[in-house]
């Protein structure tokens, strides 16, 4: 539960969303990610750290450099997260339809 809540917090921040979008295109080093923002390297590192902890990003060591890329596990969690919300509405609307159909059949 805590993990999933964190995934949502992670993408609630616009800078972190931009980082996810950037890294989605190709794996990047922290330095290369930071170049895209006006924030300090430290600030960006903090964001990357949060995204990694929430399993939205994962590290890959290539030679001496660490690259960050999307973690499919975290992304899948977000997609699944919305499912119960859709199901809740679908169930609710199915009930609405059933109630009104019953009413319709009672109209002389």
């Amino acid at each position, binding site marked *: 539960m805590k993990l*999933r809540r964190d995934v*949502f917090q992670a993408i609630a921040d616009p800078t972190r969303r931009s980082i996810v979008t950037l890294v989605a295109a190709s794996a990047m080093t922290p330095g290369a990610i930071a170049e895209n923002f006006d924030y300090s390297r430290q600030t960006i590192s903090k964001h990357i750290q949060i995204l990694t902890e929430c399993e939205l990003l994962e590290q890959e060591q290539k030679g001496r450099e660490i690259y960050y890329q999307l973690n499919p596990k975290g992304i899948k969690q977000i997609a699944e997260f919305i499912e119960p919300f859709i199901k*809740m509405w679908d169930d609710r609307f199915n*009930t*609405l339809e059933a109630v009104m159909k019953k009413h319709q059949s009672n109209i002389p």
Partner: protein
Amino acid sequence: MEQKTKINVPEGKQELTITRVFDLPVELLYKAYTEAEFIAQWMGTKVIKLENKNLGSYEFETSHEGKVVFKANGTIHKLIDNREIVRTFEMQDMPIGVQLEFLEFEEITKDKSKLTMQIIYRSEKHRAEQLKLPFAYGLTMAHNKLEDLLSNLK
């Protein structure tokens, strides 16, 4: 089975759109939203107050074993028969806050109609709280079931 309800949650925005096609004439779909008797039935709640007019308001309340478990209210800003409802909606004691809802009712054929519900939240964070709710609720239900099972074993 494929769900008939579609929900669009645009990234970076504080709104979402729910659409659904019903096998109902548009008049009946509109009635489901504007007559207390029907709201009570499909939403499973008690309608305490429902003033169906421009600048009217409404209150819903659900009790379980004598305790109020759900309370919601809002103002009805504008109504156009069988076409549109503009209203606010707020669940009490929830971190979601007030939301603004635009409900559009459309006739597709004589027996088919479409509802488009655009919901605008105070911020993206408030929207996220809303999205989390059924998930958390699902977990609670599962937990309660487990507790029931365990207590039956005693």
